């Protein structure tokens, strides 16, 4: 359950970026399949923390990316969210991970009228 501390890091980052606390309408984040984060648990924690920290009740919009892999047998690049899937060309699971660890706060949307 490290999602609670991650939710607190998210509100800290948002507060620092805005330079103030404001009720937010939407928070856009990106999570990769190798980030080790449970999206539903994060959503639950963030909803609570955002409200407690003075950011209202924003909708948390999660952009789930897939991991990008390079097949070491046939050099095909492919994307998966599930690591049981092998290369779509040759079936091999011999591969190098190129990306998939992302966990970023991308942007926030504020409705100035609601402040």
């Amino acid at each position: 359950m490290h999602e609670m501390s991650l939710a607190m890091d998210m509100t800290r980052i948002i507060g620092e970026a805005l330079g103030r606390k404001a009720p937010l309408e939407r928070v856009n984040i990106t999570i990769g399949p190798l980030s080790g984060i449970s999206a539903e648990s994060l959503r639950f924690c963030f909803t609570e923390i955002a409200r407690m920290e003075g950011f209202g009740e924003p909708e948390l919009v999660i952009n789930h990316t897939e991991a990008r892999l390079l097949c070491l047998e046939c050099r095909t690049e492919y994307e998966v969210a599930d690591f049981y899937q092998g290369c779509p060309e040759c079936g091999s699971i011999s591969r190098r991970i190129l990306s998939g660890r992302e966990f970023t706060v991308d942007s926030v949307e504020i409705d100035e009228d609601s402040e």
Partner: protein
Amino acid sequence: MCEETSAKQKVEISESVMSKNDRFAAENRKILRGRGLYTLNLISSPGAGKTTVLESMARYFGGRMAVIEGDIQTRRDAERIERAGCQAWQIETGGACHLDAHAVNHALGHMDLDSDELSLLAIENVGNLICPSGYDLGEDMRIGLLSVPEGDDKVLKYPSLFSTVDVLIINKMDLIPHLDFDVDRAIEECRSLNPDVNVFTVSARTGEGMEEFCGFVESGFLRNTG
């Protein structure tokens, strides 16, 4: 939701949520390298044998190794390491399921790291295969420890950890005759996430394979100190 009337403002942030941890990790790395310390981050599920592996390492390295123990509660593990002959600092996280670089930074401030003999710092993370995986502590070598009673299917179930380890230790090999654990499968699946991983099969309890592993760690810090 449907009122698109006025002043909606979108603010771009694009910041990694781990950025604060990563800054502390970079500072730890600077402190540790400055003192000529080679650092290990040992991660496994609870009960896989991290502390027993470290006790075995303490007997091999003696005063050349210091240990940071991460646990939810108690100094029990630090006391085991001290009895085995090494300096140990216990971090009690009080509930947190992982160590972060800030907690390690704080521990470094309390430890006596000035001994000329000291060349290795081993950090035992909180027993957990998920949460510690995203937290760089400033280590030189990340070690994933899997014990054979846990089952040979664990690697692909926890890709966020096993894709980042430099070393996979398969522990409790003395129990293999009683279990259906397929060692080759676990290794193949770990290589599928991480083709460069170094694998050691050991029994920390009997000592099997430990000298080979300790020799590998030693070659790491000897290379480091030139």
